[in-house]
């Protein structure tokens, strides 16, 4: 696979002279217009706001910190600054020296009217050399009806083409046929290892604390690596710099409250957001004592502080803490994530933006029995990441932006530690060896316009992974039986992996409203999740690449047609992709993945292939807005020791997948929303024969995944009634009534084959479904 590298190098070298040409043509000096674009009401940085130079028909968009920079020849320019949902702002500049403009955009309250000016910013959809990227405005996420009325970022992205829930109601998702552990989920750049609450029915993201959500499902920018399939980049709000404000809600299962405001106006602000479920508060009233003695709740806490020292320096500190607790008289379980991010934005000059970040994230869980018995025990597992990263953006010209940076992460995996808790305990303490590893990434990437029609983005990432002692590596024979082990001392670096990850994308503008784009990307994944169930549990065992487990490598190519219709009112895209994964991880039949010293012996390595066609029609604003997505895809795996070496449907292969999401504003106080999803049933293995053994009927199975679950479809609806919008109104509220699975489709969650209790010779199939119609009422407020 040297070809992609050669292509990348070829592109790099063919473009460098272009740059040089550009420089030579320059006569005289260039000056820079730069600054931040912010929301006028809250002071929040706007990510991806467009700054267009009318005279040049060129522009830029703000980066994730709201910063933009344009270096132009001296002259007189008109700038148009636009952002979806905000009023257009125009600015005339006489550029004869470097200038800083920090601009504040007003939220567009006239959004209801169809006549809203659809700015040039919308063209980005067509123009940007970016494929397989979906950005969801928080406002539209909030209107999507959900399970129990809990607004959920992850449930919203599952409605996009190429993205599917791993199972009914689950927070896990599969992107283009990949496994859920192949998604890099970042909250303010910190890795979130398990984004689920309550067995996955809710995600850890509290919508009130979130500003921006972007999903990269194909062409992951070179800035990020470590996962094969996707990057879900979630950014928390910074906290209102202008005035003290709050938002919250009382829902069917949980309540939320977010408070934010300036500590020093326009300089320092904070945000605190909390959420807790309260179903357990009612459990003591239950009639059934087995239910009464249960504990079941989760909570989330998001914190953020930021301070603007001056135009050139800003500091952010953010944190997430969440925990699920579940206990009954038999057993208790607790699990949770924590993330911490410290960031420093620094401007070296008007053209060089930098960000330095320190990160820590952890995930831990605990499972145990009540104390005091011979078989009482506790089992704990945790994993921790410590990272540092530096990113530099170099705005050379409106045609050329260069980015480079590096990241280094130290991983600490403690897969399991089980011990007895009673006096006179039966158990010997059981400790699985801790794994330490260092993961590094260095990248360079550039965005470039070549002529009027071509836009390119090309980058190269170099990643490396090092196993660090102390560590124990078991050696396995050809039958995966452990034969011996090698113990490595503290600090010893005993194994290395490294490789290049080229990422290239190009767009060609056919005309002002349509383009063709293509991309190629390679991703490498060094840490993996030991899981062979589809829905996922909190009992995650992440394991690093080691001498026994090679990194997974994915190569993906995509080509697409993008078009805006009706004066940029509608966005249409059609994308086709093909990807190949080498060293894809699956597990042997009857794999034992928990508390297993020789877990690596349960892994079976193979190859996976996925291809698909994704269609998206989207209308972002107006009284009726939403999208229609359709995906056709096919994902197969081939592992020598599984299914007799024959290819089989990957566990998340759903050939047809449709989502229709709509929101209609009946008036400025009442709006209705609905979404309908349809997808082919997941592949499944069913029995074809049976035999009797010890009084029970046991199955003889078909080939792996030879059958399909029944097709999945579901309609969710909601109607909301809000307070009357008035310009001077301080207190806003809305009441939302929703129904999940509105027509009561019984979607099979699992199908079991069971022996009849009365007639033991009879077997029948039994399907379990999770949700009938689930109505929910939520009251939201903000001030």
């Amino acid at each position, binding site marked *: 696979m040297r070809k992609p590298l050669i292509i990348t190098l070829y592109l790099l070298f063919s473009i460098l002279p272009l740059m040089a040409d550009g420089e030579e043509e320059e006569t005289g000096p260039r000056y820079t217009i730069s600054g931040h674009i912010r929301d006028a009401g809250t002071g929040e940085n706007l990510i991806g706001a467009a700054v267009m130079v009318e005279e040049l028909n060129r522009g830029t968009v703000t980066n994730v910190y709201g910063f933009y920079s344009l270096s132009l020849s001296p002259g007189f320019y008109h700038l148009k600054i636009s952002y979806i949902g905000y009023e257009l702002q125009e600015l005339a500049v006489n550029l004869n020296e470097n200038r800083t403009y920090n601009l504040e955009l007003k939220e567009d309250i006239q959004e209801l009217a169809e006549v809203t000016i659809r700015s040039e910013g919308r063209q980005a959809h067509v123009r940007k050399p970016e494929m397989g990227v979906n950005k969801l405005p928080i406002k539209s996420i909030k209107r999507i009806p959900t399970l129990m009325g809990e607004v959920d970022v992850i449930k919203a992205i599952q409605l996009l083409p190429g993205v599917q829930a791993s199972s009914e109601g689950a927070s896990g998702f599969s992107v283009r046929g990949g496994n859920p552990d192949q998604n890099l989920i970042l909250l303010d750049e910190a890795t979130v290892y398990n984004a689920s609450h309550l067995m996955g029915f809710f995600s850890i993201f509290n919508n009130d604390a979130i500003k921006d959500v972007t999903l990269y499902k194909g062409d992951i920018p070179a800035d990020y690596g470590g996962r094969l399939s996707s990057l879900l980049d979630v950014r928390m709000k910074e906290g209102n710099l202008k005035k003290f404000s709050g938002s919250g809600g009382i829902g069917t299962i949980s309540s939320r409250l977010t408070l934010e405001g300036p500590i020093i106006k326009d300089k320092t602000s904070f945000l605190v957001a909390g959420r807790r479920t309260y179903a357990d508060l009612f459990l003591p009233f239950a009639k059934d004592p087995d239910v009464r003695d249960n504990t079941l709740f989760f909570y989330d806490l998001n914190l953020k502080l930021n301070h603007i020292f001056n135009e050139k320096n800003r500091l952010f500190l953010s944190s997430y803490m969440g925990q699920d607790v579940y206990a009954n008289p038999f057993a208790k379980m607790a699990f949770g994530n924590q993330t911490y991010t410290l960031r420093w934005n620094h401007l070296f000059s008007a053209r060089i933006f930098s960000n330095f970040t320190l990160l820590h994230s952890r995930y831990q869980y605990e499972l145990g029995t009540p104390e005091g018995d011979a078989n009482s025990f506790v089992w704990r597992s945790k994993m921790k990441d410590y990272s540092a990263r530096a990113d530099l953006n170099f705005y050379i010209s409106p045609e050329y932006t260069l980015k480079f940076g590096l990241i280094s992460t130290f991983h600490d995996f403690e897969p399991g530690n089980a011990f007895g808790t009673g006096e006179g305990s039966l158990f010997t303490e059981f400790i699985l060896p801790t794994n330490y590893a260092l993961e590094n990434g260095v990248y360079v990437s550039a965005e470039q316009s070549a002529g009027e029609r071509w836009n390119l983005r090309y980058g190269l990432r170099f990643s490396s992974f090092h196993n660090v002692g102390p560590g124990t590596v078991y050696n396995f024979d050809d039958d995966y039986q452990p034969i011996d082990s090698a113990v490595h001392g503290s600090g010893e670096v005993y194994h290395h992996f490294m490789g290049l990850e080229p990422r290239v994308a190009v767009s060609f503008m056919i005309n002002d409203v349509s383009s063709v784009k293509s991309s190629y990307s390679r991703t490498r994944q060094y840490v993996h999740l030991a899981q062979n169930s589809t829905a*996922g549990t909190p009992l995650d065992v992440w394991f690093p690449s080691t001498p026994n487990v090679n990194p997974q490598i994915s190569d993906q190519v995509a080509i697409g047609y993008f078009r805006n219709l009706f004066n940029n009112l509608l966005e249409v895209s059609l994308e086709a992709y093909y990807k190949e994964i080498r060293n894809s991880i699956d597990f042997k039949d009857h794999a034992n993945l928990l508390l297993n010293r020789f877990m690596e012996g349960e892994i079976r390595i193979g190859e996976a292939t996925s291809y698909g066609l994704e269609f998206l029609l989207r209308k972002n604003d107006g009284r009726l807005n939403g999208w229609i997505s359709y995906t056709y895809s096919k994902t197969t795996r081939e592992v020598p020791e599984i299914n007799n070496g024959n290819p089989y449907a990957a566990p998340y292969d759903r050939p047809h997948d449709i989502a229709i999401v709509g929101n209609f504003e009946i008036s400025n106080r009442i709006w209705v929303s609905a979404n309908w999803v349809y997808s082919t049933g997941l592949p499944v293995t069913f029995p074809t024969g049976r035999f009797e053994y010890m009084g029970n009927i046991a199955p003889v199975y078909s080939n792996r995944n030879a059958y399909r679950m029944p097709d999945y479809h579901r309609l969710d609806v909601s109607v909301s009634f809000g307070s009357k919008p008035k310009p001077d109104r301080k207190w806003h509220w809305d009441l939302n009534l929703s129904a999940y699975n509105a027509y009561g489709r019984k979607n099979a969650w699992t199908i079991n084959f069971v022996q009849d209790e009365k007639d033991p010779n009879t077997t029948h199939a039994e399907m379990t479904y999770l949700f009938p119609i689930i109505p929910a009422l939520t009251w939201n407020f903000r001030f």
Partner: protein
Amino acid sequence: MKSITTLKTIILIFAISISLWNCTERIDIELDSTYTRLVVEGFITNDTTAHWVRLSETSDYFHNETAPAVTGAEVTIDDGEQVHRLTESDTAKGWYLTSPDYHGMPGRTYTLVIRNVDIDEDGELEEYTASSTMKPVNPIDSIKIEWFDTFFSGYQVRVWAWDSPDPDWYAFKVWKNGVLVTDTLYELIVQNDEFFNGNYTYGIPSQFLSTDKPEEVVEVGDTITFEINGITEEYYGYVIEAQSQVFPQTPLFSGPPANIRTNFANGAIGFFEAYSVQYSSTIATADIVNGGKP
């Protein structure tokens, strides 16, 4: 019921808790047919009794009748010194018995050979073999039964015994007044000693008599006997796999379904196992039965 089994139990309980708010109903599913395989269920123990081997055939999944018996087979067991020929039962079709004075010995390897059968009906006779080496098992010091009432009601059987310093695999069964009550794959409990090798068990709950089953209801004066088997690692794996495929599966905790292992080559399924046996009994006294029950 400990370590991995305890873990599995806990996981099962979480799964049950989830099932409190889900719904189940019958569904019609069309399944393909598969070819017929020989199924063997056979045991040799160190008890002196008529040991048996049952031969049957697989059938389509919704066959809904007793498995077809395989009759007329020639079944022998070779214990390394002698070859015993089993005789086909007159009353139970497909059951082949040793003489009533037969007993196995720990340490010996037993080889089961089945001849004179034509399962695939191609006109040629087939031969199937499997072997198993009988492992020893430590005696039990004592047992107690104790009322238990969370999620399930009944009596748990607590066991005091030493685990040997060698790796062990166990199966646990319960008898009431001389009748085996944990007589199905569902009720059999198997356990390895990975987490307590060489330790004393301190009254670990190891089997269960459920009040939901009439034959397991305990009355004053009943003799409760706990049986421990020293089984092979392969048979332990077989039971774990078979149970995981027979118990309900959920997308949360279950891996993909997969065929259950066997120690027969040549396409037969099932298991032939040699294991050793120890027993310990207790009488259900009035204070246990009445003291426990509300």
